[in-house]
């Protein structure tokens, strides 16, 4: 197996159709009226919003644009609105700064300098807004997490990853880019550097330690049981770096599952109580 960009190529037309069918099927089976999703103006949420609108019709999709003052970026908001306009779905813009400030003010141990804990509040507050819309209007929350960030645990637990359905979670970032291009997401959105925007200037590739083009190949190798030494050799990377990615992928499993429970009785939720989703 040669770890080259070619191996990450998808058939974007078939993939688009499969995702559209999946979204439509899930909404129908759960008898929801449509989907609500967070729109950051980035590639993942733009792609998933567009796919939802293509699957359900724009009138069944609501994009929530949830900026806050510290990371406010007018270009991102313009990008979000551009996608909404192009794919004909509604958006609602709500500045969440007052809610965030209420948390900052009331948390006895709040530390303004510790960016991670503070940033995670932002992602979790956005989740609350999304689920309010979902509950009130009988919508499903459609998640936009991709496979690269999910494998790396590069998301906020119970925050941006929280959703009822995650249609692109099995596509690496570079594959989402192929899909985005195919369905007509504007180039400036595809090309701009990814950021979770938990604080000003935060950049995904800088934090992950490499470009997505390389990271996705490392993850693809791990997914396909290729030894770390072989991955490092093929991609001309330091073995320690590949090992650290593998370690992180495994260590982050707690962010991808229900909370760990202790087996105490006959059938245990999250362990051997096994039921399917939906009808």
């Amino acid at each position, binding site marked *: 197996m040669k770890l080259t960009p070619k191996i990450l190529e998808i058939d974007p037309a078939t993939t688009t159709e499969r995702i559209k069918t999946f979204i439509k099927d899930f909404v129908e089976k759960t008898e929801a009226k449509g989907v609500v999703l967070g729109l950051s103006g980035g590639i993942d949420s733009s792609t998933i919003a567009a796919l939802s609108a293509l699957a359900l019709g724009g009138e069944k999709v609501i994009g929530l644009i949830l900026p806050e003052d510290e990371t406010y970026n007018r270009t991102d908001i313009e990008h979000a609105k551009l996608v909404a306009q192009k794919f004909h779905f509604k958006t609602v813009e709500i500045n969440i700064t007052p809610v965030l400030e209420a948390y900052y003010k009331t948390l006895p141990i709040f530390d303004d300098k510790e960016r991670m804990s503070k940033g995670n509040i932002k992602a979790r507050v956005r989740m609350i807004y999304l689920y309010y819309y979902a509950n009130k209007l009988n919508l499903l929350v459609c998640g936009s997490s991709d496979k690269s960030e999910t494998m790396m645990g590069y998301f906020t637990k119970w925050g941006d990853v929280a959703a009822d359905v995650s249609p692109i979670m099995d596509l690496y970032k570079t594959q989402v880019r192929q899909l985005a291009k195919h369905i007509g997401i504007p180039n400036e959105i595809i090309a701009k550097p990814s950021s979770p925007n938990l604080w000003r200037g935060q950049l995904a590739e800088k934090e992950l330690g490499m470009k997505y083009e390389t990271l996705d190949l490392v993850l693809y190798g791990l997914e396909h049981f290729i030894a770390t030494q072989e991955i490092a050799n093929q991609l001309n990377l330091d073995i320690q770096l590949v090992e650290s990615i593998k370690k992180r992928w495994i260590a982050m499993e707690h962010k991808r599952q229900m909370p760990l429970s202790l087996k105490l009785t006959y059938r245990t939720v999250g362990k051997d109580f096994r*039921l399917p989703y939906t009808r």
Partner: protein
Amino acid sequence: MREFKIALTQIVCERANKRVNLQKMEKYVEQARKKEAKLIIFPELATTGYVLRDQIYELAETIPGTTVTAIEKIAKREGMYIIFGMPELSEKTQMVIYNTAVLIGPEGYVGKYQKMHLPTHSVFEEKRYFRQGYSPQVFETEIGKLGMIICYDVFFPEVSRLLRLKGAQFLVCISASPAVRRHFFETLTVARAVENAVFLAYVNLVGIENGLQFWGGSRLIAPNGKIIVQAKYNKEDMIIGTVDYLSIKPVEAFVPTLRDIRPEIFQELKERSEKL
């Protein structure tokens, strides 16, 4: 009967709802009869859907049982053969289940096949829920000698070969295969038909269950490997194809795989596969 029509019917099942699925199957049997089909084939676990997990304990039924009786009535009324998949509860126990293909004819129940190879890898968890079957059977009917296999069995040429050596002229493979595996099945179904000089009907599930998208693409394959008819991908569909046993002869003569079988390697195959 040398030549007859069959209906390959790939359906979207409503998971865990036998009543709805049986109604749908009945509707298709009527349609197939109007199109003069003698045999109609439904996918693996067609009465319940494929992804059942722990719900299977409530859905499995004995054979004979309520579901088989209901389908016998339809088969008798329409004068047709019906093949379908269902979770079968063992008669001697309360929780031992088989993944079973059932053959019912115009006179009632004919026979069954319990899946021998249970996929338990990737997204599949069949060994957790099913006991494996032990022997494929050939059923002599007025539409020829039929053998049934189920889905992952098609990866093991020995099952189809054994059915052929027991006299089957027509193999039916019912299936619940999700989309990423399409190329395996499209290759292997043709291979099983050619290497045994038999007709092979492959009927796959469609629809989405628990994030698995079943791809359909059901097909009838001639003994020379030619696809006689093929159903749509990813959509509920019924297609009619014709089986004509006369076309086995020229294949047996000029692709003489049966003449050239080497029995002496089977003992070694057995020994080697025990010590893998």
